[in-house]
């Protein structure tokens, strides 16, 4: 049995800050108290339900895709349905799951507590952000029913301007979704600047806050460009504006510039929050301070910055000039430097720590392996001479799934297990947690590793049939996808069961020094009765737990 659970059973510490008040789940009751709540924790739970539903929907689309690819010829859906499925899969996963997932669920829940605040700076905007997200989901689901889309999630012109599907409404739905992201990120930025507890200087903050802050900055700068590009596209699709049509002096490559000016930074919107989660997990479970706090904190800002200079690497074979391609290729390499700084710092943090092996820690190991693999292949595809061969093949599909699924989804699962005791006051079953984590990893590797080989062997993406010589790798990939799906459902089941039947968790079952763990599990409605006084950083593992509590005084 893992160290962490033993800790949880033996530490005689049933209370935490605010334990004498009713916790946020029980403080008010009734549907109204949920739907109109301004409590960041309840809003986080509502987002949690939302993003899990859309992870499920996107997952169903993915399983349809993979099942179709089981055989070289048509298996059970036709070409048009296949085009619909990969487009809807991309749209659902990117905008309804991946981008909101970690910030709106775990960011919303723990960020104010980490800062010693009672709530975010603008609780009403936070609630509005949720409803705007729901509205965007309704628009997108409506568009899926009323025609769907078959353009791919990138909406490339010229096809998207003439596609008979509901491209305009998809654009509107994503536009509205962007408003929700912006609302949340403004909230995070203002909260981080203005609501930190007494004595909580920038360099004492948990690293998750730095990552959320950097993510919010990217969202704020990049999302309006996406909104603008999609409006132009929608105007073209609905009214024939022809901005990207060469016949009227337009340039189809311009759309790709605009789209990727948002969407490359958007990939960092998806990965940076998971860097934050991983930093918390690795410190908490190795009971050690980060090998270099500043390296992790500042490299988040570095990635946020440099991520804006690399968008052209998606356009190497789209007619981009050789000069621009060279510039973008070279700039892309810098991202890898910052990412490598993080990876090395996490690994170095393990050194000399006292490591306890719980489920989040296992997810950290998967993350490390998969993210490095995905990042290295990112550098490979950013090399122009290589990308000419790999572009639009399964190699690229494998690259970004290694990062988005192997990185972000893995970190999402790590967070779901790591903060579970804090959010719901219960412990999940550690053995089942470890087992499902292994299933997710094996399923993942079987799904996506063969896709590198397929792409390198020349199999293009976005086709529903393929030459028979590619079949055995596709069969591996499809089998892996089913295992991955099963692993995810079991992991979810494990957490849902623990909601009711899990053992009660103390305030700090993992022995972490981060500030969210000084509150009761689950926290009371206001987290703290008074602003806490902080006299240490979030990672002082040299202090005993009693002394550490003493130096983060709160009521």
């Amino acid at each position, binding site marked *: 049995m893992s160290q962490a659970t033993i800790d949880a059973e033996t530490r005689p510490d049933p209370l935490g800050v605010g334990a004498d008040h009713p916790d946020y789940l029980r403080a008010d009751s009734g549907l109204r108290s949920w739907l109109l709540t301004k409590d960041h924790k309840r809003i986080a739970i509502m987002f949690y339900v939302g993003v899990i539903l859309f992870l499920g929907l996107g997952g169903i689309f993915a399983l349809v895709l993979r099942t179709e690819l089981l055989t070289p010829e048509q298996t059970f859906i036709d070409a048009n349905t296949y085009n619909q499925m990969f487009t809807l899969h991309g749209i659902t996963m990117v905008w309804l799951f991946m981008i909101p997932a970690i910030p709106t669920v775990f960011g919303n829940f723990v960020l104010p507590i980490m800062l010693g605040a009672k709530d975010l700076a603008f609780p009403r905007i936070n609630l509005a952000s949720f409803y705007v997200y729901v509205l965007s989901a309704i628009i997108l689901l409506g568009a899926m029913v009323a025609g769907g889309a078959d353009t791919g999630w990138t909406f490339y012109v010229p096809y998207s301007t003439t596609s008979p599907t509901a491209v305009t409404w998809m654009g509107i739905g994503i536009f509205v979704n962007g408003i929700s992201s912006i609302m949340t990120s403004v909230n995070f930025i203002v909260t981080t600047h203005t609501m930190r507890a007494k004595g909580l200087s920038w360099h004492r903050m948990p690293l998750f806050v730095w990552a959320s802050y950097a993510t919010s900055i990217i969202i704020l*700068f990049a999302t309006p460009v996406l909104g603008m590009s999609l409006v132009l596209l929608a105007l073209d699709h609905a009214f024939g504006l022809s901005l990207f049509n060469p016949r009227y002096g337009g340039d189809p*490559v311009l759309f790709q*510039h605009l789209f990727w000016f948002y969407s490359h930074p958007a990939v960092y919107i998806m990965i940076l929050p998971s860097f934050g989660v991983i930093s918390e997990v690795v410190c908490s479970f190795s009971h050690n301070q980060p090998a270099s706090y500043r390296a992790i904190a500042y490299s988040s800002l570095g990635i946020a910055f440099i991520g*804006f200079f690399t968008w*052209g690497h998606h356009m190497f074979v789209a007619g*981009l000039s*050789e*000069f*621009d391609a060279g*510039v973008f290729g070279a700039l892309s390499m810098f991202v890898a430097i910052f990412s490598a700084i993080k990876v090395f710092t996490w690994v170095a943090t393990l050194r000399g720590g006292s490591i306890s092996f719980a489920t989040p820690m296992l997810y950290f190991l998967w993350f490390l392996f998969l993210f490095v693999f995905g990042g290295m292949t990112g550098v490979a595809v950013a090399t122009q001479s290589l990308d000419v061969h790999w572009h639009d093949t399964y190699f690229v599909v494998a690259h970004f799934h290694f990062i988005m699924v192997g990185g972000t989804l893995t970190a999402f699962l790590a967070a779901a297990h790591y903060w579970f005791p804090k959010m719901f006051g219960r412990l999940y079953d550690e053995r089942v947690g470890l087992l499902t984590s292994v299933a997710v990893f094996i399923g993942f590797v079987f799904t996506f590793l063969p896709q590198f080989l397929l792409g390198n062997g020349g199999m293009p993406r976005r086709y529903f049939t393929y030459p028979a010589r590619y079949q055995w790798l596709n069969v591996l990939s499809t089998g892996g996808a089913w295992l991955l799906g099963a692993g995810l459902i079991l992991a979810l089941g494990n957490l849902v069961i623990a909601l009711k039947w899990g053992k009660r968790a103390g305030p700090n079952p993992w022995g972490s020094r981060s500030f969210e763990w000084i509150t009761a599990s689950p926290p009371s409605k206001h987290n703290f009765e008074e602003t806490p006084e902080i006299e240490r950083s979030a990672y002082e593992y040299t202090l005993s737990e009693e002394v550490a509590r003493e130096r983060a005084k709160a009521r």
Partner: protein
Amino acid sequence: MISAHVTTPKLVVSWIALLVLTFLSFGSSLLGLGEAELFIALGISVVKTFVVLFIFMHLVEQRFANRLIVILTFLFIVLLVTLTVADPLTRKTFPPRPDPAASPYP
């Protein structure tokens, strides 16, 4: 550190300035300047943007930090436009690739 106040006379002056700039950009479109037209129109609209931001949206009254955000935002637009425009401008810099169809393998 409040350095300036937006007063009614200032609002009126900037409003007139905006009108004059609008007529300027309309007028310049009648001169038939060809390529230069676009740059003139864009230049004028940038000036107008800053008038609106600093006077009508009261940015002159703000702390430097708040103004910095607007400047950064502007730099991001500059970034977007520069690297994007650099693409069509440099498309013919290198000699064209040999057409593989024209000279197949010997």
